[in-house]
């Protein structure tokens, strides 16, 4: 067995153990911590499986945002899961039957890593062969994401936009301000404040690098947007939500949510005006490659804008919910 196979097996076993622990534990806080670990391990596994761009996204999501959102929900609801009251037999039977059917189905699948598998011989070779000449950037994933399959990505960005609006509709209108509560920030944590101040700059800089280096290395608007949002969230956590709202007002963020999608759609519209198909960037520059470069840059920027704005306004909506967790739920 090669070392690659051993790493593969070890990481998958880790994932299995973590998932099982999540199922067993009833302290929801521990569940949140374990789900952060689950995401860390799956990011390592994705690097191992050559999906560096995906691993980057999983890392950006799992290390910060999803943990923060889960904790914010726990702070507003309850910290403990009640013991199940119903019989677990029926779900168990259903799960085992489904599992066996799926395992039976895998027996006919092409073996892992097979270069002749159907998935490897259809569209992918074209993308790998033509990216350099048609798009002119080394990162094939970015080329496919923003140019070849730009329509899909526009759809995904719209989904994120819609989900963000959904969260705002559900939560933002219900911000309650009960009397008798006092403002509390982490003022006394000197070490934390200093280190956070030092860190925010590099995080923002790194987000810019990820945003604009996507043509050459792993990265892109999705990842950069989340990293941007993480910087604002860490500021809000340590220096207080009020101060964060002063720096980045909620209204401005909500405006940016729409601006990103608009930028993406607008780039497509410009190629309309030049008499080409929607989202065909070739007309934007002097020649095809220059046009593609500019188009991908703008589109990725739109994606980054929307993702960052949705994440920040989601965090504002969750953290701005005031009633703190009741004693019986703690």
């Amino acid at each position: 067995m090669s070392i690659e196979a051993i790493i593969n097996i070890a990481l998958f076993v880790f994932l299995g153990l973590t998932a099982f622990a999540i199922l067993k534990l009833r302290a929801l806080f521990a569940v949140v911590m374990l789900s952060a670990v689950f995401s860390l391990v799956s990011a390592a596994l994705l690097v191992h499986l050559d999906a560096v761009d995906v691993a980057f996204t999983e890392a950006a999501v799992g290390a910060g945002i999803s943990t923060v959102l889960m904790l914010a929900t726990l702070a507003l609801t309850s910290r403990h899961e009640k013991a199940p009251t119903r019989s677990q037999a029926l779900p168990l039977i259903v799960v085992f039957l489904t599992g066996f059917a799926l395992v039976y189905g895998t027996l006919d699948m092409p073996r892992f890593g097979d270069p002749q598998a159907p998935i490897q011989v259809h569209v992918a070779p074209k993308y790998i062969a033509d990216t350099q000449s048609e798009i002119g950037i080394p990162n094939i994933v970015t080329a496919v994401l923003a140019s070849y399959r730009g329509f899909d990505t526009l759809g995904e960005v719209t989904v994120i936009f819609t989900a963000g609006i959904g969260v705002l509709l559900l939560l933002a209108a219900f911000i309650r301000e009960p009397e008798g509560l006092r403002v509390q920030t982490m003022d006394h944590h000197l070490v934390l404040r200093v280190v956070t101040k030092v860190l925010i700059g590099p995080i923002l800089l790194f987000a810019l690098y990820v945003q604009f280096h996507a043509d050459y290395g792993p990265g892109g608007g999705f990842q950069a947007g989340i990293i941007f949002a993480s910087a604002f969230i860490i500021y809000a956590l340590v220096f207080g939500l009020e101060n964060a709202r002063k720096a980045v007002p909620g209204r401005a963020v909500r405006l940016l949510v729409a601006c990103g999608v608009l930028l993406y759609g607008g780039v497509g519209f410009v190629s309309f005006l030049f008499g080409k198909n929607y989202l065909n960037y070739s007309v934007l520059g002097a020649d095809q490659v220059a046009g593609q470069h500019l188009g991908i840059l703008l589109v990725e920027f739109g994606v980054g804008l929307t993702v960052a704005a949705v994440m920040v306004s989601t965090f504002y909506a969750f953290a701005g919910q005031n009633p703190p967790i009741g004693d019986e739920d703690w």
Partner: protein
Amino acid sequence: MFTATMAALLAAMILALGRLYLGPTLYDRVLSANSFGTKTVLLIGVMGFLTGRPDFLDISLLYALINFIGTIAVLKFFRYRTLGDRVGPSGDRQ
């Protein structure tokens, strides 16, 4: 040698996972999750060298930067019972 380092990291990760599952206090869990994060940073770095394409350290760099956020959020949650600003009379645990 990279293989040995990799094995050491995997062993350390499984131990941290054990502590995360066992608890018993929530601070133990935060500590082991944090330590697990550091090990993942190293694992991804070593993995790049093992496969001979070490230019994907950006992912490790990202973890090193924002693994911190999770820890801070957890601590704020336990100290003030909220991730926002206001703390009710019942939420003051100092």
